[in-house]
């Protein structure tokens, strides 16, 4: 699975509350639309760190970095290139 697929799979299977998992794609607004709440977001951060070995720096723990799967991918790429 690609990182994108893994992220989508994790979000669909582990994090969504009342939302239809199949309606979520890489551009779905996860936070502003309330698909995932703050507790779920914390689990997502932990998942990303464990899966990629990249630690999200303290000053990157900002909701804007996690709005969509695409943005999470971009964050991971940016952190890996540091």
């Amino acid at each position, binding site marked *: 699975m690609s990182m994108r697929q893994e992220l989508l799979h994790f979000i669909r299977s582990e994090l969504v*509350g009342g939302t239809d998992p199949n309606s979520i794609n890489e551009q779905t607004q996860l936070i502003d639309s309330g698909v995932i*709440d*703050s*507790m*779920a*977001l*914390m689990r997502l*951060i*932990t998942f990303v760190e464990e899966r990629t070995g990249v630690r999200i720096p*303290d*000053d990157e*723990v*900002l*909701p804007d970095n996690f709005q969509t799967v695409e943005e999470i991918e971009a964050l991971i790429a940016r952190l890996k290139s540091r």
Partner: protein
Amino acid sequence: MKSEVVIVGGGPAGASSAMFLLEQGVKPVILEAEDFPRYHIGESMTGAGGKAVRDLGLEAEMYKRGYPTKQGVNVYGNSERSSWWVPVTGRDENWNLFAWDTWQVRRSDFDKMLLDEAVKRGATLLKGKAQKPILADDGTVVGLEAKMADGGVQRMMSDVLLDCSGQATWLANTKMATGPKYLGAYDKQIAIFSQVRGAIRDHDGTRQKHKDNTIIFYKKKYHWAWFIPLDEDVVSVGIVIPSSYFLDRKETPHDFYVRELHELHPLLAARIPEIELAEAVHVIPNYSFQVKNFCGRGFMCIGDSHRFIDPIFSFGLTVAMREAQFAAPVIRSYLNGENRDAANPFAAHQLRCEKGIDILEDVLDSFWEHPLAFALFVHSRYTEFMTDMFAGRIYEHERQPSPALFAFRKLLGREGMREASYENDDLYSVPIGSRYHPERAPLWEEDAADVETTEAWLGPR
């Protein structure tokens, strides 16, 4: 008359100062205008506040009086799942964390107990109202003039004058000794509060769901409520909101309060199915301020008399009592002749206190500005350090600034680290925000000068 130390105000800052001074062999005079008991807000302690009470030898008394034992703080965000809790803790001599109790106190009772105890231990209590400090030619504070209960004016001379007048900020308002008083970061907020009977409490036998814990509910940024049990039946509940929101509603404080109890948060509403108030609805607007140069030749300000940020995590009693504890040995040394000729004999004490409260302010700012990071730090990344901050272990000798605080300062200063410079009293360099800045509109208006007591400051009963 003459006393080595004269204390203005007999609340927790004043009574604690007196008792810690007595331990140092100093017998102070306390000047208090009001008859105790009297109503006061600020009912919850942190772990370090509980330690200060224990250091005064009052633990058994606290349990005897049956004050609710607070074992933690539960915070409920805008969804039921986005909640978290922080336990009340202490640190042993090896800096290992342990679970501890602290207390919720009905202030009328607690403050009277402290003041009575200070008198029992040897402090002299005089009834009267401080008018103005007496200054020597070189500007040193050498005493004060007080209007006594019998109507006479008395000059009370002192080696050290302690302002423990709380949010009345008596000494700062005289503009004769301290630096100026500025509005603080949360000066646009307003607190509306009362006491509620019969609220539904947690009780499942765990520390997390202990019936006497503090609960905080927040609806959105700057809009939240506290829930602090005061006995088996009565709970202090306060609503804190931006002043503009309150004014826009055009409701009386009572109507506003009752409606907010229903509407602010579903979990709060569920705990108060029927609203029966045990106390009038009180209002404190624009409560946030800071006094610069709050220590100097012949004087110190302790607790709220020099700074108040925000009530959200209940640091008021803790800071007042801890500053009193820090001050006592410093005053003892000064009376022994140390630093007598320094431009500010208490500069080190002042800096220690200032840095501690700056840490608190950074924590509070981070709570509102970076809730995601805040929750992550509490839950997993910096749990232990966050526990310390919630306990009020905020001073440099308590391993501060901690990694969590550095992280917050990074987040708050997105273009760089948010830092305060302590080198020049008037030039605090803060990259974002303006709360320390001298140009910030000073709370230095004529009407503030008329505020003579904490009660007057607290507004209508």
